[in-house]
């Protein structure tokens, strides 16, 4: 062959300069974009911590357990206790309601519904997630809150009124209870769509095995489907919780923005995110702004831990599924 006679090293470069530059440029650009994207996460944490610093120095850790929000007292006195409690109560309340409903929807869409029904129903439930929170909030103020105050809350109060959290005057309109329902509506699409994916991922041999052994569909779900993805279901619920913790607008519209928080769910309260949304115009002094940013930092830390943990669990399930098949 002719090529064999060419001494090694004297072969002409076939890659054009343009290609080498182009490859390097594309690599550099895309890598840079990725780095900037991740840096944004750290920039958020850093800027919020930095902005909160004056308040951290002034209020110390006492900020999280003191319960006062007064611009005029001692040149501004702020503590987030009831806001944190409000966030926890509304989010966990929403989780208690939306968890079981979302699992049921996930099961319906993965195991029960005829194939022709699955896609449209799934899409409709996803559309619920697309409704902007301000619209849900508007609906919450003028449709849901009156309905709660006139029918739902008095009904629950009549049966369970002896429990303090269902006590008080059930005819109040701006209530923690309404906020819980609003958050439930907003978390259902998130949790249920992840649940559906998880349940679909359960190997059909397992399901068929259970049916073959004479289990009813419910027994199959209870003994095979749900246990094999239990961690994922928990993570799905926690991801919904993460959304609920940080929801500002819809909550601030319905909850009444009032601390000290009522001991009853049928009274007013406030959450961290809701307080932030509510105070955006009123923030006048430097100390108040710093206190608000401190509040944002507390919220950020809580949601960060929640989401990170949930993401890790979900990732593990994804890996298991793709690695196992």
């Amino acid at each position, binding site marked *: 062959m002719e090529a064999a006679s060419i001494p090694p090293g004297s072969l002409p470069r076939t890659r054009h300069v343009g290609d080498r530059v182009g490859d390097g440029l594309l690599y550099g650009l895309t890598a840079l*974009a990725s780095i900037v994207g991740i840096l944004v996460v750290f920039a958020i944490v850093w800027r919020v911590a930095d902005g909160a610093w004056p308040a951290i120095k002034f209020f110390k850790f006492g900020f999280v357990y003191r319960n006062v929000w007064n611009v005029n007292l001692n040149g501004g006195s702020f503590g987030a206790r009831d806001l944190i409690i409000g966030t926890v109560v509304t989010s966990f309340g929403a989780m208690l309601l939306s968890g079981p409903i979302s699992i049921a929807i996930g099961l319906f869409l993965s195991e029960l519904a005829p194939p022709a029904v699955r896609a449209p129903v799934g899409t409709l439930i996803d559309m619920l997630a697309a409704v902007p929170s301000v*619209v849900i909030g508007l*609906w919450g103020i003028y449709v849901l809150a009156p309905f709660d105050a006139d029918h739902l809350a008095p009904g629950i109060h009549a049966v369970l009124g002896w429990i303090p959290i269902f006590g008080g005057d059930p005819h109040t309109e701006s209530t923690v209870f309404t906020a819980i329902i609003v958050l439930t509506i907003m978390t259902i699409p998130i949790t249920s769509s992840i649940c559906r994916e998880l349940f679909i991922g359960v190997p059909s041999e397992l399901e068929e095995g259970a049916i073959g052994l004479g289990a009813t*569909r419910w027994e199959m779900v209870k003994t095979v489907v749900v246990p094999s993805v239990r961690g994922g279901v928990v993570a799905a619920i926690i991801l919904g919780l993460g*959304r609920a913790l940080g929801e500002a607008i819809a909550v601030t519209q319905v909850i009444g923005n009032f601390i000290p928080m009522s001991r009853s769910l049928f009274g007013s309260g406030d959450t961290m995110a809701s307080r932030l949304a509510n105070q955006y115009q009123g923030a006048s002094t430097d100390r108040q702004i710093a206190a608000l*940013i401190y509040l944002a930092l507390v919220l950020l830390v809580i949601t960060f831990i929640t989401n990170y943990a949930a993401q890790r669990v979900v990732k593990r399930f994804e890996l298991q599924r793709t690695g196992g098949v």
Partner: protein
Amino acid sequence: MEPRAITLKATGRGRRRLLVNRVAESTAVLAAVLAIAVLAVVIWSVGSRGVGAINPDFFLKGPSSDFFGGTGGIAPALAGSLLLVGVATLIALPMGVLTAIFVSEFAPVSIGQQIRLWLDVLNGFPSIVIGIFVFTLAVKTKVPLLGIGHHQSAVAGGFALAVIMLPLVARSTMEVLRLVPNNLREASYALGVSKWQTVMRVVLPTSFGGILTGTTLAVARAAGETAPLLFTCAIAGQIVDWNPTHSVQSIPLTIYLDSESADPALHQQAWAAAFVLILFVLVTSLTARLMLERSRRKLGLQR
């Protein structure tokens, strides 16, 4: 199924098991029906209350300053929303697509997974905190750039929305790029085409539809976000303003402020604006999803 000579009707324990099964199945159906019913009720409430106030003036006029002359229209908010989402898309689209290209074409698997994880973490940040972040970055402190900083502006608001959109665009683009058949890439390499040419001429055009729909979904989400704008682009004049260094009105904020107001005429305006917003969001997300489904099927078949 029908009992004939010997009865196949379950009795005792078996009957209870079937009953429990029936109850469980009905609960699942009920849960799905409930979720759809809530969606229907929300859309119906907004539609029935909002549609009455919709007329050409509503889109073309600003809020009326005349105390008795009704509430006027939402033209400034409409323009402002367009501007804000435009700025956000301009930032988030290239960033998101480039990140996705890096993850699917260049990065080793482990780094790709890290990037995905952090994007998901970003996606989980409360949108109000992102608003505060931009507030500390561009509103509270002076940015010696373009005359923004030290006051609210459409650039600041758009940047906050871009932070919301970035993980959505990047994740959806990654999904689509992953669906591009590998033999297309290999065929291109076999012809001696370089990597960047392959990405630009083969991978991106193949996944163009998917990227477009993913971006549309992100736009729909950003258009409805209120919380990031509260601290960054909330206090604005009552006129149509296309200057991105000014603070502008927006549809979600108009709904929020109107809903908190005591004036019933403004409530009417809130419902109408909500109707416009919900219509836009639902129509765009629905179309985008259907298109995504189609392009996914198309790419899936090629493989």
